């Protein structure tokens, strides 16, 4: 049993390392070759875990080889559009201004139900609201609505609004995030002043404190209601 525990630890660490090495794509964003790779890796990793007579190397070597193949395919896909289309396919327009392209639908092995479901998923319940729907290479459907059905934006209204700014976490679960202090270009004394303004006595009493470029502060103690207030705009926050 001890052997199994150690083997599981080794293989888990290696698989984790390999997934980190390959990047941060989520399951729904995978290209076909990435999905194949994930399935094979999952299968291969279990063999030396479950079978003690199989050397760990017999599990690790195929994993490493698959990662090399993955990098080769990724590099070739970046270098050649033709190769990229070959392994990942091309985005296909399934709805155009004339309606559903049934030929494209048949080529993709999709049904009308699949299309209507994807369109509903995008927030449109009538097909006539859609100008274009594109089946992406990762299997997701992008929907471009007709202008009369598109959501209204601030740009459409030509309103002058304050530019949105990314809030930066300064305190998280009672600890100051030193890296984020540098990003926000503030020091610990400033953080203590913010805490005082938020009626929080100590750093360790603060659940979360964020601040953005516009000087908008959000602070919440561990077991109390949050408070928001504004300070002078930081002006120098690097986003």
């Amino acid at each position, binding site marked *: 049993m001890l052997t199994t525990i150690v083997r599981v630890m080794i293989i888990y660490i290696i698989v984790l390392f390999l997934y980190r090495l390959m990047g941060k794509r989520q399951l729904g964003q995978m290209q076909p070759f990435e999905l194949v790779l994930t399935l094979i890796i999952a299968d291969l990793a279990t063999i030396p875990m479950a*079978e003690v007579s199989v*050397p760990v190397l017999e599990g690790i*070597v195929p994993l490493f080889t698959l990662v*090399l193949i993955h990098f080769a395919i990724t590099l070739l896909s970046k270098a050649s559009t033709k190769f990229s289309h070959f392994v990942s396919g091309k985005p296909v327009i399934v709805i155009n201004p004339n309606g559903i392209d049934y030929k494209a639908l048949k080529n993709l092995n999709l049904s009308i139900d699949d299309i209507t479901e994807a369109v509903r998923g995008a927030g449109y319940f009538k097909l006539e609201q859609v100008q274009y729907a594109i089946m992406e290479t990762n299997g997701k459907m992008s929907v471009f609505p007709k202008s009369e059905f598109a959501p209204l934006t601030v740009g459409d209204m030509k309103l002058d609004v304050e530019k949105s700014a990314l809030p930066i976490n300064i305190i998280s679960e009672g600890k100051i995030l030193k890296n984020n202090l540098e990003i926000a270009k503030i020091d610990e004394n400033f953080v203590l002043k913010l805490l005082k303004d938020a009626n929080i006595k100590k750093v360790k009493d603060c659940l979360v404190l964020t601040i953005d470029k516009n000087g908008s502060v959000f602070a919440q103690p561990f077991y109390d209601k949050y408070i928001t207030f504004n300070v002078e705009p930081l002006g120098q926050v690097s986003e």
Partner: protein
Amino acid sequence: MTRFMWFQLVSIFVIIALLTTICVVEDKLVQDALSNVKEYCYQIENAVVENEGIKNTKVNSLVENLEYSWLSDESKLCFVANHKSMQEIGVEIIKLKTYLEQDDIKEFSVSLRLIKLYADQYHHFMGADFRNVL
């Protein structure tokens, strides 16, 4: 190049180096182990012919050497191959020693031939051999 790209690049080179090393070491281990076994088998066969029988110190010491050599090689081979797939040689060596004690030359020769056969057959799943690819 970002830090992550450097990390990827270095990792790829490390993986390539690791895979190459594993392949070379595996091939060397397999070739050495199996050629040692075959070499001992030929020596035992010659000793049996020269001494006109198996009940003698030369054959006895060669069988002991064969067992010692295989056990030490087998423990190394376990890192690169499933040891369940290569246990036949060990079993036949034990039989060889039993037939030696019983002075059963017929069964002794059969075991010796089987060991040589296994040493040939193990190449089918161990080491580098393009016949195994397909």
